[in-house]
């Protein structure tokens, strides 16, 4: 990785040296653009990549949302004609796939990439090029999976793609092939991202920041990365077996050839249940930052939140078969998984109590971020309670594959994961872009989303318990029933709710556009925050911190601003954020080493879709893609870890010469 010397003068003004490579390195000349589209395409900066992850995830959120609206329009009236049965199957499959793999996971990665290095006082992640590679992989996977719409139809077996629906007889189009191979690429992104972020958190913490002084968001993201590290390879195996069956004639899931259909279910859910925590824990982390700040209190029971998060990470591996209670596992398995599923509600309950007690007695400020955080506590608890009803196996057999399940996971994923993400948007927007999102619009955004989501998913409890099957593409007036529990009424309510929800999301986009256009700058520390990411400028400088902070406390930034009076035990302000920043700039590190951009991540990532397209349509194309893959790996590996002197322009003036020291 190249090292660009960034001399910093005593006033804290940076002079970025222009660097032009004079000779090829690892096959290409190094990219050097610091502005314009090239600076984004070849960047290895964790903050730029975080924003790119966010933009990509938001795009797929809107796409998946439109798919959901089409589903609800289809079910708004009896004998719906909006979608055909076949397109309806593709729609719900792609809605779930998009929301899980292309929205919530990349959005969590966006926050993780942007804020983990800032929260632990680091200047970048451990492997910046691998970070960029992960982003280009997930983007490639998203585009690749959605290409199937234009090549004969998308995947249509539901997001967990059970056999025999995934087989060539029930799914003859290439949709499932695109789906399986696309998720393989997404898996590579998750795996590299997980390794990268774990190493970053373990190895690159600022001096003094022990694990138990780490912000909770970073902690819970660490748990998530471990879950990804061990869950992704299991789905990788399952997807390989599926691809071998569909593309090379194996019969792994073909019951008529003697295969066991439960193999796929086990492999999928051994991945799939940890995946559920992969989706929700980042949002738990976000609101564990937001609630203390807007309650003006430290998080209640920090170690309990941390250890209950780790406990969820462990127990999350022992509950997968509760997705399979209806598959005839036998009484012992069902009893074991029933009990472990009830047990995992405990660490989650611990968190709910901790958050509530953080609010207790605090000086609450009801900002938009706080609204979403409290919304998460309430809505996730509703979803959690319906989850406990699934853990009771006899009641679960009644609920399996009904709308009751759909209600449950939308309460925990929309009410939980999505509300947490929106809380993060409102809380961290001023940090990322230097401008605060409009609070009034934010609260309208919140209330429309709360009303919309409860109208959409609340009635689904009733629909499900009344027996409306999940994935049913039409309902008829004759079988809707009468009275309070008739399916027609509640389906219509749910469809209206989905439009209100859409309006809420639309308000958020309006808010973003309005804020981006506004000239008003956010204050340096708009929320009186507690953690290290607020101890730098907004948006942060490329090297994050002028001085790597020495950490003495949990909530270090708060303790630099406030001091406890030894007699009254009251906290008194001793410094403002501006003063702390000015002090940092005055003592700025002279030589800050930043990784330089590289072409290789995007080149290497681009070879993967070539291979997967080749696997589906023509093996020679896959082989060509494989050759490019190996070449790109060599190019990457041979790119020197320190840029030679010839990569840099001669210094423009005498002054900067003095600042240039020999490279490592």
């Amino acid at each position: 990785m190249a090292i660009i010397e960034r001399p910093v003068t005593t006033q804290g003004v940076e002079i970025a040296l222009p660097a032009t490579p004079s000779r090829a390195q690892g096959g290409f000349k190094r990219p050097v653009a610091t502005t314009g589209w090239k600076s984004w395409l070849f960047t290895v900066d964790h903050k730029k990549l975080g924003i790119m992850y966010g933009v990509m995830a938001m795009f797929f959120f809107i796409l998946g949302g439109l798919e959901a609206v089409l589903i609800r329009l289809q079910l708004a009236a009896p004998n719906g004609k909006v979608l055909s049965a076949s397109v309806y199957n593709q729609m719900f499959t792609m809605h779930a796939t998009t929301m899980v793999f292309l929205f919530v996971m990349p959005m969590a990665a966006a926050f993780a990439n942007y804020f983990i290095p800032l929260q632990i006082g680091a200047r970048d992640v451990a492997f910046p090029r691998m970070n960029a590679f992960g982003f280009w992989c997930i983007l490639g996977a998203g585009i690749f999976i959605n290409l199937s719409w234009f090549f004969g139809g998308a995947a249509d077996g539901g997001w967990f793609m059970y056999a025999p629906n995934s087989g060539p007889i029930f799914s003859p189009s290439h949709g499932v092939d695109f789906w399986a191979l696309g998720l393989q690429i997404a898996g590579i992104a998750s795996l590299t991202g997980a390794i990268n972020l774990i190493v970053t958190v373990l190895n690159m913490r600022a001096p003094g920041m022990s694990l138990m002084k780490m912000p909770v968001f970073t902690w819970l993201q660490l748990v998530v990365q471990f879950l990804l590290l061990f869950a992704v390879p299991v789905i990788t195996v399952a997807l390989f077996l599926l691809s071998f069956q569909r593309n090379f004639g194996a019969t792994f899931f073909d019951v008529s050839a003697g295969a066991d259909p439960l193999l796929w279910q086990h492999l999928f859910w051994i991945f799939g249940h940890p995946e559920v925590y992969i989706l929700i824990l980042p949002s738990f982390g976000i609101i564990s930052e937001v609630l203390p700040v807007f309650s003006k209190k430290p998080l209640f029971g920090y170690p309990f939140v941390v250890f209950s998060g780790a406990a969820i990470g462990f127990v999350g591996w022992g509950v997968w078969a509760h997705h399979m209670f209806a598959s005839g596992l036998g009484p012992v398995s069902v009893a074991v998984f029933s009990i472990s599923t009830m047990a995992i509600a405990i660490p989650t309950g611990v968190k709910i109590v901790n958050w509530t007690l953080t609010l207790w007695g605090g000086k609450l400020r009801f900002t938009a971020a706080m609204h979403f955080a409290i919304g998460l506590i309430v809505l996730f608890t509703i979803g959690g309670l319906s989850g406990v009803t699934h853990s009771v196996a006899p009641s679960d057999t009644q609920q399996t594959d009904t709308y009751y399940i759909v209600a449950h996971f939308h309460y925990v994923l929309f009410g939980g994961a999505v509300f947490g993400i929106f809380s993060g948007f409102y809380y961290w927007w001023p940090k990322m872009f230097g401008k605060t999102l409009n609070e009034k619009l934010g609260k309208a955004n919140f209330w429309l989303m709360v009303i919309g989501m409860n109208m959409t998913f609340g009635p689904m409890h009733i629909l499900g318990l009344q027996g409306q099957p999940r994935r049913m593409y039409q309902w008829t007036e004759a079988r809707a029933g009468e009275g309070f529990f008739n399916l027609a009424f509640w389906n219509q309510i749910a469809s209206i709710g989905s439009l209100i929800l859409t309006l809420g999301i639309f308000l958020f986009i309006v808010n973003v556009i309005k804020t981006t256009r506004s000239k008003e700058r956010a204050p340096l520390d708009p929320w009186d925050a507690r953690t290290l990411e607020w101890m730098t400028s907004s948006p942060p400088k490329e090297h994050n911190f002028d001085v790597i902070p020495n950490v003495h406390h949990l909530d270090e930034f708060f303790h630099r601003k406030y001091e406890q009076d030894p007699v009254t035990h009251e906290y008194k302000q001793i410094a403002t954020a501006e003063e702390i920043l000015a002090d940092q700039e005055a003592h700025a590190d002279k030589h800050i080493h930043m990784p330089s951009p590289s072409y290789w991540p995007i080149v290497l990532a681009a070879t993967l879709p070539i291979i997967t397209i080749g696997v589906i349509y023509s093996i020679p194309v896959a082989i060509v893609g494989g050759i490019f893959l190996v070449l790109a790996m060599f190019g990457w590996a041979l790119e020197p870890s320190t840029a030679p002197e010839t990569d840099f322009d001669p210094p423009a003036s005498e002054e900067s010469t003095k600042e240039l020291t020999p490279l490592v």
Partner: protein
Amino acid sequence: MSDVAVHEADHGTHGHTTSTGLSNNKVAMWLFLGSECLLFGGLISTYMLYRGRVSEGPRPGNVFDIPFTSVSSFILLMSSLTMVLAVSAAQNRDDRGTTLWLTITALLGATFVGGQVYEFTAMYNEGLGFTTSLFGSSFYTLTGFHGVHVTVGIIMLMSLVGIIKRSTIPGDKAEVVELIGLYWHFVDVIWIIIFTLVYLIPA
């Protein structure tokens, strides 16, 4: 992906120590190998579930040539020894010894892969194709994945020999040798498990 992990830059370890004292690259390699355990766990489970399911074609006991595979397994295990010698030479800044032992390791690995190709061919001729039975599919998938891992290891070893020959500073790549060694030992340990479960324990 291990290639990426191994050759990823020294950023973050240059000039200042890490919080754990271990280098970023080493922690990354251990994490990657942890992840690989689950990959092989899934493949081995699939094989164990399906090894008795033979609707047509030969059964497991009829196609395995245990003496032959024992010899090739022994060769693979010996390559772990030569890998250790390569790491030791690298730590002593002995570039000649390092490249010598790396090359021998790669050759032993290539012998093993060659043996696997021979074995697959023989089995195919006895009527066990990839799609013949669930046993065949899961056997070729499991051992094939392992064979690909050994092959990737050989490519990494040979690339490393080339890189060390080009580098001007002796002992420069000692840690990379160690990391590829970790990967190589891991692949060997997996083979011990596969050999025991697939070949030695009767279905």
